[in-house]
């Protein structure tokens, strides 16, 4: 299956579609909620052009995420690529795609992915402290646990 079609099949499982991000000429990122459709035999995805967006070419990112009404059951994906215009809309050509949070699928596979993510985050945390020359601050567990209890009881 082509990458564009794979991304589209994943995005349609999200109630609110996806978010397309580009970088405006003044350097600020701009993000729009959208519902992409596959084009070019599923190689790319087309997004309806917002009337106010005056540019459409360059590096781009397509991200989808969801949570339930309790802010949990998190799911998310990200695709990176570039955009151009085909006269009918903005065309996103993906180069990379991965799930950033997943709660559906083979439980063994999900567990393996979760453990890998955990190990990577521990490494990244140590790397961040090292690169920025900071020491890990002590964590006031009693204060945090008490505050959490208070917040949940209100």
């Amino acid at each position, binding site marked *: 299956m082509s990458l564009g079609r794979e991304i589209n099949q994943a995005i349609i499982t999200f109630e609110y579609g996806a978010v397309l991000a*580009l970088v405006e000429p003044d350097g600020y*990122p701009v993000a*729009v909620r959208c519902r992409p459709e596959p084009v070019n035999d599923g190689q790319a995805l087309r997004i309806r052009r917002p009337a106010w967006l005056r540019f459409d070419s360059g590096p781009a990112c397509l991200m989808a995420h969801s949570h339930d009404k309790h802010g949990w059951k998190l799911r998310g994906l990200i695709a990176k690529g570039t955009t151009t215009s085909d006269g009918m809309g903005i065309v996103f050509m993906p180069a990379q795609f991965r799930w950033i949070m997943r709660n559906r699928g083979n439980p063994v596979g999900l567990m393996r992915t979760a453990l890998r993510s955990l190990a990577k*985050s521990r490494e*990244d945390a140590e790397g961040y402290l090292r690169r920025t020359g900071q020491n890990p601050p002590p*964590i006031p567990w009693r204060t*945090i646990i008490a505050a959490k209890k208070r917040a949940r009881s209100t």
Partner: protein
Amino acid sequence: MNAVPAEVMSVLTAYITAELTTVSQQGQPVTVPVLPLWQSRHQRVMVTTGIGLPHKIYNIRRTPKVSVLYSDPTGSGLDGEPAVLIQGDATVSAVTSWDDELAEWYSVAWQKQTKGIGTDPITRKYMSWYYQRVKIHVVPQRIRWWPDGDMTTSPKVVKL
């Protein structure tokens, strides 16, 4: 300085999540979901990240221009599905595990996200990085918003 309109404020305080976009060293926009806190006394957005997920912090240190999009109304309790796009300048704090701002952010997070990362012994041992956080403050420069959430139409705009 213009004030943030009331209809925008209602979205900023009600939506559980938003989408933060930073720009990588290669100029690639990268969007991640975040749990934002609107700090009305400072007229800015605060998000935080555990230091185990540092890529957005690295991006902001290089390129402080970011956007925060509020476009998923799930759990907000608001009528309609308004969308708000903030573009602004971000700064990052030193690594912190507790202060008044984090206490406020946690309080909002725990109320909105009634499940979440725990404080049990296993989490404390293997996920302490989650509780060692960097605060990201975003001062808005421009706000666009769509009362009906249809972002293909022309937005209302305020420059701050």
